[in-house]
């Protein structure tokens, strides 16, 4: 009987039912789009924040005053790939090794002592112990650097910083004397920082040239991290075993740095706080923001769906009054309308979910250039949520209608 009633009622009130479903569809769509966004925002934004540059600096360990003022110590070249073996290896999105030396450049009778840096611009190294490769080089840690021309591929050519290029009036293709040897300029580099006053050579070529085989002076690492909280700022040395475990297995910038330090022999790995500290704060703020927005839309659309259901039922008071006069108990009346409510809710939830997939995909591609990951889990959740809300929106007005004397309703005095 319920099936008949509900079916007939929908068939007869197609427009009204369609309006209700539409209302719930769009209400749910906003809420579930925001849920998708709030689940994805952390990951997306922390990737965006990587544009601020490396957040971990690996340098040789300092053992005495001599190390501080000039005496060179080095890291081992072969440890670079080991950074991709740590617990949080998948969070490491960029690695750039540097060998720092000096050189005197001369061109058109003008000379200057500048830093000669060995590094890679962009290349892929094989993953240790796995198939596949991972990207390394300056481009992976400092995406804002722009190279015009080509990167140095041997000891015969170099890349020069943009300030030097304009000062010496040279351009890619020209030659410049480096420590007395004329080298070809393969490209110029514009970083907007001190690197504009340095010259660059392929890492291995510079190692050979300077007789520093297997040595590097520092490594910059760009890693996706979890926002720092009070716990993260504690000194790991003072932690209990369980706390240390928790700290080690949370992707804090400090714990990732610690893990990197462990794989680079004789190193000290430190968060670059200017980047890492701000990153955590910005990330946390944005997460809270989107989370609150999500709550707000959830509340608004919950109430919205309820008003839709209430509006639908208020108009059927007469029907309810008649049913009551026929001797229907409140459960039976409620059952009829709740069934209708559930079906409307489920339909609205389904369409709303589909709509939200479209909306969040659009937002993802538009803002982050990549579609947001959809979670199939959200479909049953949305449908169940919409159904629950529409049940709530049904029960209330029915209760109200049950309180009103049928005699009043049936006489038409609403």
């Amino acid at each position, binding site marked *: 009987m319920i099936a008949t009633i509900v079916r007939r009622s929908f068939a007869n009130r197609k*427009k*009204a039912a369609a*309006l*209700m479903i*539409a*209302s*719930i569809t*769009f*209400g749910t769509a*906003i809420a579930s789009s*925001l849920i998708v966004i709030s689940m994805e925002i952390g990951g997306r*934004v922390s990737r*965006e*924040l990587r*544009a*601020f*540059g490396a*957040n971990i*600096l690996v340098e040789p360990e*300092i*053992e005495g*005053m001599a190390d*501080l*003022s*000039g005496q060179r110590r080095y890291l081992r070249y072969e440890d670079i790939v080991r950074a991709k073996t740590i617990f949080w290896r998948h969070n490491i999105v960029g690695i750039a090794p540097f060998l720092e030396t000096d050189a005197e450049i001369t061109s058109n009778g003008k000379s200057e002592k500048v830093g000669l840096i060995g590094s890679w611009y962009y290349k892929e190294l094989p993953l240790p112990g796995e198939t596949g490769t991972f990207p390394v080089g300056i481009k992976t840690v*400092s995406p*804002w650097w722009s190279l015009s021309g080509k990167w140095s591929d041997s000891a015969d050519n170099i890349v020069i910083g943009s300030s030097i290029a304009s000062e010496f009036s040279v351009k890619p293709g020209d030659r410049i004397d480096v420590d007395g040897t004329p080298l070809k300029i393969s490209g110029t580099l514009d970083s*907007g*920082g001190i690197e504009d006053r340095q010259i660059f050579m392929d890492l291995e070529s510079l190692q050979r040239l300077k007789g520093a085989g297997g040595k590097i002076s520092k490594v910059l690492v760009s890693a996706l991290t979890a926002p720092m909280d009070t716990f993260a700022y504690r000194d790991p040395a003072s932690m209990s075993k369980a706390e240390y475990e928790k700290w080690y297995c949370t992707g804090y910038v400090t714990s990732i740095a610690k893990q990197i330090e462990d794989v680079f022999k004789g190193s*000290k790995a*430190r*968060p670059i*706080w*200017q*980047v890492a*500290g*701000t990153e955590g*704060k*910005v990330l946390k*703020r*944005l997460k*809270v*923001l989107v989370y*609150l*927005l999500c709550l*707000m*839309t959830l509340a*608004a*659309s919950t109430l*919205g769906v309820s*008003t*839709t259901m209430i*509006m*639908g039922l*208020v*108009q059927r008071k007469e029907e309810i009054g008649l049913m009551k006069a026929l001797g229907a108990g409140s459960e039976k009346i409620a059952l009829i309308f709740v069934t209708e409510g559930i079906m409307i809710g489920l339909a609205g939830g389904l369409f709303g979910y589909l709509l939200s997939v479209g*909306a969040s995909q659009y*937002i993802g591609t538009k*803002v*982050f250039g990549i579609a947001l990951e959809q979670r199939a889990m959200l479909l049953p959740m949305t449908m169940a949520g919409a159904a629950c809300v529409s049940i709530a929106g049904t029960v209330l007005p029915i209760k109200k209608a049950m309180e009103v004397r049928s005699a009043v309703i049936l006489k038409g005095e609403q």
Partner: protein
Amino acid sequence: MKVLSRFEIRRFLFFFARSVSQRKGRVVIASLSVMLAVAMVTALAGINSGIREKLGAELKAYGANIIVSPRNGDSIEAAALDKIRGIQHVEDASGQVLGKVFIGGYAIELIGLNIDRLKYSGWRFIGDRPAKRNEVLAGIDLRDALRLAPGKTLSLESNGGKADFIVSGFVEKGGPEDSSIIMSIEDAWELTGTNNVFSAILVRGEPGKLDGIARDIVRDVPAVAAKTLRQVASAEESLLSKMQLLMTLVTLIALFASTVSVASTVSANVFERKKEIGLMKALGGSRSQITLFYTTEAVIIGLSGGLSGFIAGYLSAQAISRGAFGSFIHLPQWMILLSLAMGLSIALTASHFPVRGAMRYDAAAILRGE
């Protein structure tokens, strides 16, 4: 619509008031749903208008995005600092003194700066910040190399002379600062034997306006070079504009979706009154009389929903801003007009179509209940 006489207006208002008071439940529900939509969109738009400023304030911690350095010689007159602070779009500027000091014969970098500003520029402190003259901070590498502890006295030598300093705490930055001594500008001047000069001025300009600021600095301050730090500048601009875009799209989608959602609720209100409309027609009500009736109701629903929606939206925007950024947000004044307009247009459009539809029906058919 023809101009109504005063009598007609009064009669209209009488019937209108009767109708609304008989159906206040529905009118309240309809304006409640308009309110919800308006509140959501108002809050989103409010956050949207403030997100740049709020996030920008967070990004300040990335520090200076323009570095002003001397073009000739090795110092900038202190007066340049005030000039730079006066340039448009400059949010903050502070001077730095760089030098060398010797500790037990080893040369160490010395950085003199305005200690109060340290907290904004992404340093991590261990121990206390210097509270008075002759207190200094040591970089964390220096601490490890010298096995320093807070309160320890350091004897520093420079071309200006020699003095004892007390280490109040340590800093970690993840850069060359980690092996330096950091002290107040006044101490640095005294120690290095200089006065009222800076080695560099660090400028924090509004993201997106940096090139203009750098140009203005070079024009207004003699003998300096200004360099924008692209690392900070471009990443900031990109992040801010992405977040702004995100908020704008979310707002637009919410605007669209909640409009449709609410419009269907509100039009259900009129839709189910076909019978009433049929009756009015049967009683000889003209098209414009009937339309006026429902339009007035829609205006009331729209205005009350829009106004209460603005209030609810304003409060939620403030609550959200408070929660996310720890500060209130400034909502532009025109937002209230926007909210009212949104409420009105939802309610009017939503009741227009069903009324027009009902007008087209045969009154007899409606009254028979078909």
